[in-house]
């Protein structure tokens, strides 16, 4: 490839990676945690008992109906989520209020696996809030969030492709990591983390774009189905074969036996497990029951839908096999979500997500390191570099640390606070703002070390907070074989240790280079210090 083309690719790689790099880092960290959403949910709702044996779905249906009849007899819609392995360990119910009712609805309400009664759990965003944030962001409307995430994903995709083109020694440097060599080490780690997880990164960005294609390509729908919400609704009905729900008749009629509907669904689905049962207008003559199978058994995400009459229990409709184009889209979505992944494969997903986060973090740092050298040689360093460096420290370390604060708030906020779940999210973002502020005001040479120490302290405190505020402390969890609670506590200690290692490494680097080299503001003007860090004394390997 021509030299000018490679240079153009290099520029594209650098700027697409940098401009939305912090958004991408946010998406990767929260998305990676999304692979542990159920486990985080469980830790953040310690009232839920450990599931020691498989829950009988048939019993769960009967329990759910009893709870719904008692709690929401006049609801316009009931939803029952049945226990379904790792992704849905508990049965849960939720409902939507009727048009006449002032209450909008409630749920999910989890059911006790032993007694079948509803469990009182604390209000929390849990792991689902973190997972949702990676594609919806927070404090912005869903549409804005999706567009920002879409543009960032496109930038990531471009950065990956251009990165492949500009990485001239891809095979020669395949296993190369040279620690302790400053900029060279950052570049090695950037290359290593991206090349070794490249199939995952390509899949996750491409499927991420596919996930939201109906948001990013609205004109295609408008062209065929007409503009506005009506056109979109018609398209989604066609594309996803959603059952038509008639309006309520206004005449009362008893609901068909959901246990019988469940039993018939199991035989019709031929091995696939039932994930949810929805009852529209329960108690009305026009009631409709929609049964959905679990699509998390394979990457193909092939969920089937069965529609029954809500009074007679007669089968009305069965979803057709999906078209080839839908199968290919579902496959990409299934691979992206990884719901089918068993523990070992989930660990690979987690590792690849972490490597993606490292790739972005090292890319951001590398941008600073390179310009630091050029800036010092020239005019003492540009001001934006100073701020990019601070923003990097406040985000790369500050974001995981503020997620630790989010976990801590789950244990510290009063259980009867109104809007408790929203407050937990506020804690996450306020603490992130504090980390960014600390990064902005502290000396550049110390900021990484201090942030890492703070993050290590927060994560080390989480198991302690858990032990003090709940009865599910680590030794008890281990003794009871409650591996989710114990695993979370141990993981927190592991993350704390990792941050301590980063802090130690940064401390060693600072001792070797007493002056940061970054331009500092002294008396209102920028002053650059002479850099003596080892990275500047090391000749660049050929």
């Amino acid at each position, binding site marked *: 490839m021509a030299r000018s083309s490679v240079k153009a690719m290099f520029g594209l790689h650098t700027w697409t990676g940098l401009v939305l790099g912090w958004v991408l880092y946010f998406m990767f960290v929260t998305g990676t945690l999304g692979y542990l959403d159920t486990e985080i949910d469980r830790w953040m709702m310690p009232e839920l008992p450990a599931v020691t044996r498989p829950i009988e779905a048939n019993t769960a249906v009967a329990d759910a109906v009893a709870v719904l009849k008692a709690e929401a007899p006049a609801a316009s819609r009931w939803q029952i989520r049945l226990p379904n392995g790792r992704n849905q360990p508990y049965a849960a119910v939720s409902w939507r209020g009727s048009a006449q009712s002032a209450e909008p609805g409630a749920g999910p309400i989890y059911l006790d696996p032993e007694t079948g009664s509803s469990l009182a759990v604390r209000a929390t965003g849990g792991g689902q809030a973190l997972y949702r944030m990676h594609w919806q962001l927070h404090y912005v409307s869903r549409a804005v969030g999706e567009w920002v995430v879409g543009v960032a994903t496109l930038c990531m995709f471009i950065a990956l492709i251009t990165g492949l083109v500009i990485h001239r020694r891809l095979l020669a440097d395949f296993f*190369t990591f040279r620690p302790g060599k400053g900029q060279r080490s950052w570049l090695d780690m950037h290359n290593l983390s991206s090349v070794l997880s490249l199939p995952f990164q390509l899949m996750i960005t491409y499927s991420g774009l596919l996930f939201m294609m109906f948001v990013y390509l609205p004109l295609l729908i408008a062209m065929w189905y007409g503009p506005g919400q009506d056109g979109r609704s018609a398209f989604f009905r066609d594309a996803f074969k959603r059952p038509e729900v008639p309006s309520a008749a206004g005449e009362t009629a008893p609901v068909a036996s959901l246990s019988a509907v469940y039993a018939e669904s199991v035989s019709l689905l031929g091995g696939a497990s039932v994930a949810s049962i929805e009852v529209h207008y329960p108690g009305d003559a026009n009631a409709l029951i929609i049964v959905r199978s679990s699509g998390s058994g394979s*990457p193909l995400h092939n969920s089937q839908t069965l529609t029954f009459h809500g009074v007679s229990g007669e089968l009305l409709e069965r979803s057709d096999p999906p078209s080839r184009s839908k199968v290919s889209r579902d496959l990409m979505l299934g691979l992206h979500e990884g719901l089918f992944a068993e523990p070992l494969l989930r660990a*690979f997903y987690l*590792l690849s997500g972490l490597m993606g986060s490292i790739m972005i973090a090292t890319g951001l740092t590398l941008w600073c390191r390179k310009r630091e050298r050029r800036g010092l040689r020239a005019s003492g360093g540009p001001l934006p570099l100073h701020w990019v460096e601070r923003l990097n420290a406040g985000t790369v370390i500050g974001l995981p640390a503020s997620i630790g604060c989010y976990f801590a708030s789950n244990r510290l906020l009063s259980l009867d606070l109104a809007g408790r779940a929203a407050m937990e999210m506020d804690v996450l973002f306020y603490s992130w703002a504090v980390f960014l502020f600390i990064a902005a005001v502290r000396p550049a040479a110390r900021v990484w070390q201090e942030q890492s120490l703070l993050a290590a302290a927060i994560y080390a405190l989480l198991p302690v907070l858990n032990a003090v505020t709940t009865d599910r402390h680590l030794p008890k969890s281990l003794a009871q074989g409650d591996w989710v609670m114990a695993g979370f506590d141990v993981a927190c200690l592991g993350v704390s240790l990792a941050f301590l290692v980063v802090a130690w490494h940064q401390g060693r680097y600072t001792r070797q280079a007493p002056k940061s080299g970054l331009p500092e503001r002294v008396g209102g003007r920028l002053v650059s210090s002479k850099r003596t860090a080892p990275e500047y004394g090391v000749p660049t390997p050929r």
Partner: protein
Amino acid sequence: MIGIAFFCAAVACAMFALTQQRHRRQLFLGVLTQSQQGQRRCLASVLLMVALAICCTLRGPLLGVLFWLGALSVSGLATALVLAYLPPGLTLRAKNRNRHERGCHD
């Protein structure tokens, strides 16, 4: 069995690394001839294919490929980190083999 697939992938990655000039220099190993390099890379490729075959047999073609890619990532990362922090782990065996190849005896 999946452990065997991982072992094959790890050995293949180590073999690929030890055919690269940079890492041979790093480990004070002699230069390989073109044919030696080709043979070892072929053998490493065969090991990777064996790992893929085991994964696909055990988990089916789709999940098998995912497992295989995961095994490659983990093995590649492990190889890079061992080369960076614990090179003696690879050197001792490599040195002995190298001596045998050159007909050197202690």
